[in-house]
Structure formats: structure tokens, C-alpha cells
């Protein structure tokens, strides 16, 4: 199989499905986070860390569908967790009962499954809308010893209902913390690094999803301890299935340049942290000539 073209990666339990779904509800999980529930016309089995391209059906559809990690699903229903940041997410927030959506999924390479972590306990570190893939993993595969960390701005920013006792919570500002819940001050990666349960010689595997600075900090944390680390990247996406090359990220390559563009939607969104050329991330892929067009 062509590496740049790995259509349905070998791990994928089922092929990608193009289906419709009906809007059921937008449920506010925190000040900024909304859970979107839809009823599926066809089941879309998926692995934790995979995503779907979501759009409004028919004449209201956006030019590009939007990528969202899958929070949970049954045969009939699927849920996402999102934050309104622009036109597409605003359209989702404005959906009315029964309105039709299109779903293309599952897509992308998931987090390693429970059988692929070498029996080591898993540490899951999520920031903001990076929660869905990790929440799904812990819910489906979590064993005693696996531990989740979630970071938000303040108490209002935390989806308390979604986060059970397996999740440790940190906030930049310790305001609006509900009675009976705990939240530590500071950044989530620092919090995890200092957490009592993560000291000692026990080797672990780290999964993370969230903003790039957070992922970099998590990758450093894992590297310092010699732990394997897998991160899920949110790149801008046009198609979500390898058709457009609109979503590339720089990864290590043995070739002369030392790096190459990986197609995030097909080769990712989950990458091993040491595959990523963090130093090149967000930098021009080619020197910018002063030309028009």
C-alpha cells in the first residue's frame, strides 16, 4: 500500500461509511463545551481516537465538512463534544430537532488499543475539546491504574458530568469549583508531571489531545521519563480522507531533508510524539518566495 495513500489503515475494524444522521440534542456540558447527540441512519463502529467529518445535509451544507473526534456511539447514536469557534460550529449549535446531518466516518488512525500498550498503565492528558478521544478510550478500555487528566480555564470550563473519579482536573483559575469536586491550580501537563500517582519507576504510556503547546509539554514530560507518548493533532482539514493534502504536519523522515509532510487525516490524527518534528510545526514547509499567485 502506498504510504501517502493509506486509505483505510490496517487497524480499522470497519470501512469508512458515508451516512446521514438526524439531530437529537445539543447538551451544554460546561460553559464552553456542547455535546452534540445525533441518531445515525447506519451504524458507524469506530476505535477511540478516530474522527468523523460532520456537515449539515442538503442546501445548508458547508463547503467543507468539519472534523470532530467521536465522543461515544452506539449502533443508533453518536455523540460529539465541541466548542463554538466559527461558522461551522455555530451552525451545529443552531441545529433544530430532526434536522439532517451528514457523517463520514470513522476516519484516521486511532490511539493504540488496550492490547498495544504492552500491559503498561495509560495516562490520558486532555485539554478542552481534546477530551472526546481520550474520554472514549478510558471509558471503553480503562483498567485500574489508568488515569485521566483534564485541564480547563476555570470551574465553569470543566464538563463535570463527563469526568468521573478516574479524571484528575486542573484549572488556570480556581473559581466555580462545585462542592465535593477537586481541581488543582495550574497547567494540566505540569499537574500530571507532579501528580503523586505518576512518580516512581512504573513505566507508562501517555495519550494526549489538546492545544499544541500542551501537546509539546506532554511530549517533553513523557520523553523525560522514557514513556511512550501518542498525541492527537487537530489540523485544518478540507476532506478528512486523504483527498486534498490540506492537512499536512511535519514528521521525521529518513530521507535527506530529515522531515516530510504527513497527511494528518490519514496517517494521523494520532501520531507517536517522537514522530513529529515539533521544531518545524507551524513553520513554512518551503521558503516563501516573494511572488504573487
Amino acid at each position, binding site marked *: 500500500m*502506498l504510504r*501517502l*495513500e493509506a*486509505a*483505510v489503515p490496517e487497524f480499522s475494524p470497519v*470501512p*469508512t*461509511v*458515508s*451516512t446521514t444522521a438526524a439531530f437529537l440534542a445539543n447538551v451544554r456540558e460546561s460553559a464552553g463545551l456542547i455535546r452534540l447527540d445525533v441518531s445515525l*441512519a*447506519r451504524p458507524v463502529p469506530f476505535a477511540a481516537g478516530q474522527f468523523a*467529518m460532520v*456537515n449539515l445535509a442538503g442546501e445548508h*451544507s*458547508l*463547503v*467543507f*465538512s468539519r472534523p470532530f473526534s467521536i465522543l461515544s456511539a452506539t449502533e443508533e447514536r453518536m455523540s460529539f463534544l465541541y466548542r463554538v469557534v466559527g*461558522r461551522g460550529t455555530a451552525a451545529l449549535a443552531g441545529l433544530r430537532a430532526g434536522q439532517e446531518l*451528514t457523517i*463520514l466516518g470513522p476516519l484516521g488512525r486511532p490511539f493504540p488499543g488496550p492490547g498495544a500498550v504492552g500491559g503498561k498503565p495509560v495516562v490520558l492528558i486532555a485539554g478542552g475539546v481534546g477530551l472526546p478521544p481520550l474520554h472514549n478510550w478510558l471509558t471503553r478500555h480503562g483498567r485500574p491504574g489508568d488515569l485521566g487528566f483534564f485541564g480547563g480555564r476555570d470551574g465553569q470550563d470543566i464538563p463535570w458530568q463527563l469526568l468521573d473519579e478516574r479524571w484528575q482536573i486542573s484549572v488556570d483559575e480556581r473559581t466555580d469549583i462545585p462542592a465535593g469536586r477537586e481541581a488543582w491550580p495550574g497547567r494540566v501537563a505540569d499537574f500530571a508531571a507532579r501528580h503523586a500517582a505518576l512518580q516512581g519507576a512504573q513505566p507508562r504510556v501517555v495519550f494526549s489531545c489538546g492545544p499544541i503547546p500542551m501537546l509539546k509539554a506532554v511530549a517533553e514530560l513523557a520523553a523525560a521519563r522514557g514513556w511512550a507518548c501518542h498525541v492527537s493533532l487537530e*489540523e*485544518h*482539514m*478540507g*476532506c478528512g*480522507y*486523504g*483527498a*486534498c*493534502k*490540506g*492537512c*499536512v*504536519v511535519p514528521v521525521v523522515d529518513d530521507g535527506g*531533508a530529515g522531515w*516530510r*509532510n504527513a497527511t494528518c487525516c*490519514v496517517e494521523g490524527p494520532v501520531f507517536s510524539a517522537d514522530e513529529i518534528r515539533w521544531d518545524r510545526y*507551524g*513553520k*513554512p*514547509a*518551503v521558503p*516563501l*518566495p516573494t*511572488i*504573487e*499567485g
Partner: protein
Amino acid sequence: MALQLPAWWKIDPTAPFELGPRRLPGRIWTASGCFAYGLTGHDFAAPGFASPYEGLGAVVTKTVTPAPRAGNPMPRLAETACGAINSIGLENVGFDRFCDEVLPELERRGVPTVASLAATRPAEFGTMAARLHRVAGGFAHWHGVEVNLSCPNVAEGGHDFGRDPATVAECVAAARAELPDRALLAKLTPNITDITELSGAAINAGADAVSAINTVLGLEVDLTTGQPVLPRRFGGYSGPAVLPIALAKVDEIVQKTGGKVVGVGGIATATDALKFFALGAVAVQVGTAQMRDPFAAARIARELRPG
């Protein structure tokens, strides 16, 4: 809801038709750059469809250049109200890997293929066409070449290159000389005052048809930074917004040049495609809409089958 086909529409777009020396399996194609090399999505499922290739006349593969290209910096896409601006920068695996890996795989999977090529010197089109003929001359599913004379995202060649009728003619002639039994198309830029000068040059130089249009030069501004969204400032505008522009260019070409035209630009539905056929296009390509829905072209092909 099923489309009510107009009375004048008698063609089955999933039936073979002649284009120059080659018979192509159908008239609904995917556009270059919007369905990769035609290998991604091959086992996707949609209710009622065997595959995303069902009924397709051709997948026009992502433009390949003599050497691989890493493409432009991210972000490469900017969505606007009714369209999208892209600046992929012709990221591609290069002509060697295309010949050695991509084309044989497309043949193995039975995907009808038109290979899109770009180069910076006219003679290179001849060299590439000759190699294709050598490598894939016996393939059943490789049907032709589209010379991309119009991608606005590359510094050398590309734009200005494809605006000069004499250069267009040179490129087409070079490829034609090496393609005795395959269809040859020239993909034209709309970013020119009179597109018929280009289409005339291409047809006279031996192209079996012109593909019109490539993307329209566009720019989007990020108001938080006050800067263009795309690092290269400009990109190629596509999607529903460019449909009327593409229709106008196709009409001009049909009316003034008389050559065959493959219509591209803004097609998202069977209705959009019919408009190109109404103006005399022999086939159409689906680009941006194929990115949104891997079954877009297959759905259009099915809807346009009469009876």
C-alpha cells in the same frame, strides 16, 4: 428526492464515449487535486453504492511534477461563504513514483484514470507523456493525460506559463507527439481576459479537449491578524461560487473555438452538471464537492442516467 431530468437530456453519462483516439467509460469525472490519486476512499461505503467509483468516467489524478514537491506552508485552505481558497502548492509524490506505484495500483483496482501533469518547460510534457506511454501503454484503465497549465500556486511555470497561448501550444504539442492512443486534455486557467485564445491554441496544437476551469485567483483575510489567511496570500478559489464563472468560460470556448470542453468548476449536484452539458460540454469534473463527499461524483452520475 429524485431529480426531474429535462426533456433534452438523452445521454447516459455512464456509457462510454469517444474522446480523440480513446473511448472513455463515462462523462462524470473527478477533478484533479480533489480526490488525491484516486486510491483513497476505495473501500468507503455508502448506502446503495458499491464504491465511490461507481459510474465514474475518470479520476483525474492529483497533478504530478517531474520531481516530488513538498507543497506550500499550512494553512492551505480557507473556506469562504460559498467556496474555498486553496494553496496546496502542488504537493505530489513526483512523476517517478506516480509511474512506478500509483498508475499500476489504479490499473490493478480498475479505476479509470486521466493523469494530470505539470512541468516548467514544454519539452518535459513530451518526456513525461512518452514515459507514460511506455509504462502504461498496455493498461486498460489509463485513458489519457490532462496537462495542467493553470495551477496558480506554484512560483515557476504555473500561472504565467499557462496564460501565454504560444507556450500552451508548445506544451500540448509536446505531449501529443508521444500520446498516439490516449486522450489529451489541456486544463486552462480562467484568470485571463480571453480564455478562447488559450483554448484555440490548445485545440490547434492537438488537444482532444480543454478542461475549463481551474481555480480563480482569490484571497481571504483573517481579521484577527489583519493578514491574509494563506501564507502565500493568494490561492485558488473553487466551489459553488465559481460555477457561473466556469459556465461563462465554457460557453465562450464552445461558441468561439468550437473545440470540445470538459466542464469543471462549482459542480456539487446533478443540476449543476447538467448546466455544463446544456452548453455543450462533453464531460464534467467534480472537485471541491468530492472533498466533502467521496461519493459526490458517483451520485451525480447515477442521478443523470435517463430512465
